[in-house]
């Protein structure tokens, strides 16, 4: 058993730092984006352009008292935030960020532990996330929190189905569940990426749109943030949480957004491969910088969507999942399977 302790510890620290740093600065991006759209300035007092605001917020969260309201189920109340954060960290273990791409370590893959069923691992741990919401909402002994938990669970279960079906479509096309193999199958330019309807993959755009909508819904982002609809449910399942209990839920949410964006990038947007490797040789043909660029562009899209679209109602949300996305995903799966079998027969 080859156990490289330094490698593991470095990646563990790196993953947690990456998740926490992203959570802190994505909040800043979110607030700046919201401010831009609503013609405000957003955070601007602490540091240049409010850049130190996230650190101040973090210090505030960590130094606050944890309040346990009367009547809560205390053990579950304390465990729920951990259930929000641990699966996210576990998922980062298997996400490959791509090779360095330049310098002396150009071929070094930035990944803690690549698995040959990496996609399955991500989906499995992502499905545990609903449990945190459920436990948190239930143990708070708060009506708003319970309503939010029930909403969150029905939403999570409904959107997980089309998400997984679409992921299976991509697995069929690439013939592998290993994330780096899926990315390498898309190398060579943006016309090879899975969401383009070229290269025989006619249903690519449908898959991409279904997957992206499910990703928004699974991470409880607006316009699907029924679980924490501020105007109806105060703050939803984390109404009663204070200090780092709330902080962990928040970090978990932003970590999930980063995971969703990474997964969308890997499955549909060519991962760490360059969109035009031959014409414009910027950053090399494959580099983790491309990967980061793509996921942050996706996250920015998610922020824009949050601040421009109004929240849907619960019924239209569930109808969207059960009546539109699941049939579309199933037809998409069948169509892709038929295409994969028929096109080689026709010699294409």
């Amino acid at each position, binding site marked *: 058993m080859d156990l*490289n302790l330094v490698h593991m510890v470095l990646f563990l620290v790196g993953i947690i730092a990456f998740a926490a740093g992203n959570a802190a600065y994505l909040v800043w991006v979110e607030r700046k984006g919201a401010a831009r759209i609503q013609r405000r300035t957003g955070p601007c007092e602490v540091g240049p352009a409010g850049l130190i605001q996230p650190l101040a917020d973090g210090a505030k969260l960590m130094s606050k008292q944890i309040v346990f309201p009367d009547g809560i189920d205390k053990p579950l109340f304390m465990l729920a935030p951990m259930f929000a954060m641990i699966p996210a960290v576990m998922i980062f273990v298997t996400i490959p960020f791509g090779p360095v791409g330049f310098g002396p370590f150009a071929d070094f893959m930035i990944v803690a532990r690549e698995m040959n069923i990496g996609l399955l691992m991500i989906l499995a741990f992502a499905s545990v996330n609903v449990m945190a919401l459920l436990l948190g909402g239930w143990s708070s002994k708060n009506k708003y929190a319970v309503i939010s938990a029930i909403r969150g669970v029905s939403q999570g279960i409904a959107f997980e189905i089309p998400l997984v079906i679409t992921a299976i479509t991509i697995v069929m096309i690439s013939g592998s569940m290993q994330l780096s193999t899926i990315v390498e199958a898309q190398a060579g330019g943006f016309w090879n990426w899975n969401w383009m309807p070229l290269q025989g993959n006619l249903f690519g755009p449908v898959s991409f749109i279904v997957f992206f909508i499910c990703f928004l819904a699974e991470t409880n982002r607006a316009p699907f943030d029924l679980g924490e609809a501020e105007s109806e449910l105060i703050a939803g399942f984390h109404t009663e949480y204070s200090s780092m209990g709330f902080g962990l839920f928040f970090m978990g949410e932003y970590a999930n957004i980063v995971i969703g964006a990474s997964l969308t990038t890997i499955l549909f947007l060519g991962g760490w491969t360059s969109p035009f490797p031959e014409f414009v040789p910027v950053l090399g043909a494959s580099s983790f910088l491309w990967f980061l660029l793509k996921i942050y562009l996706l996250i920015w899209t998610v922020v824009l969507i949050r601040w421009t679209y109004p929240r849907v109602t619960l019924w239209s949300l569930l109808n969207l999942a059960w009546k539109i996305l699941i049939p579309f995903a199933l037809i998409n799966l069948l169509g892709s399977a038929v295409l994969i079998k028929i096109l080689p027969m026709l010699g294409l």
Partner: protein
Amino acid sequence: MNIPISADMASIVKEGVFFGFLIVTVVGALLATCAKRMVRAVFGLVVCFIGVAGIYYFLGSPFISLMQLMIYVGAVAITIAFAIMLAEPDEDKIEAKTPPLAGPFAVVLGVAVTWALAAASLGAKWMNPAPVEKEGTITQVGEALLTNYSMVFELVSIVLLIAILGSLVVARSGRDKSC
């Protein structure tokens, strides 16, 4: 960056993690059976499932381990918890009445089962299993399901279809058309 780690240390870490999963499984199972609040019992079940998933991983099948996590934790346990939350919002005062002889009977039965299992496991000749090839586990599962066990596979899908249809029938009758 390579720090050589002796085989001893690696096996200690490995066994530690394995026994950790065993303890998690047993603690989860105890929590699931002893907890007085239903939601805590479901939580114990979740912990137990996670432990079992870890044991599957050690048995050389990460695929089944992850499916265990995805299906049992991500779907089954959540559905159970959901049902409990909808059905029993306040369960503080439920005291189950037990027949007078239930306690002693349970003790006798428990001792008997423990003795039988211990006798069976201590008396058996344990052989080292043939090394399982770790690569291609999904391939093996898939091939087995679609060749040797295709009949079972089809029957299971029919059972699932009937379950879906049944739940649709049950759900349809109690719903008004307003929403």
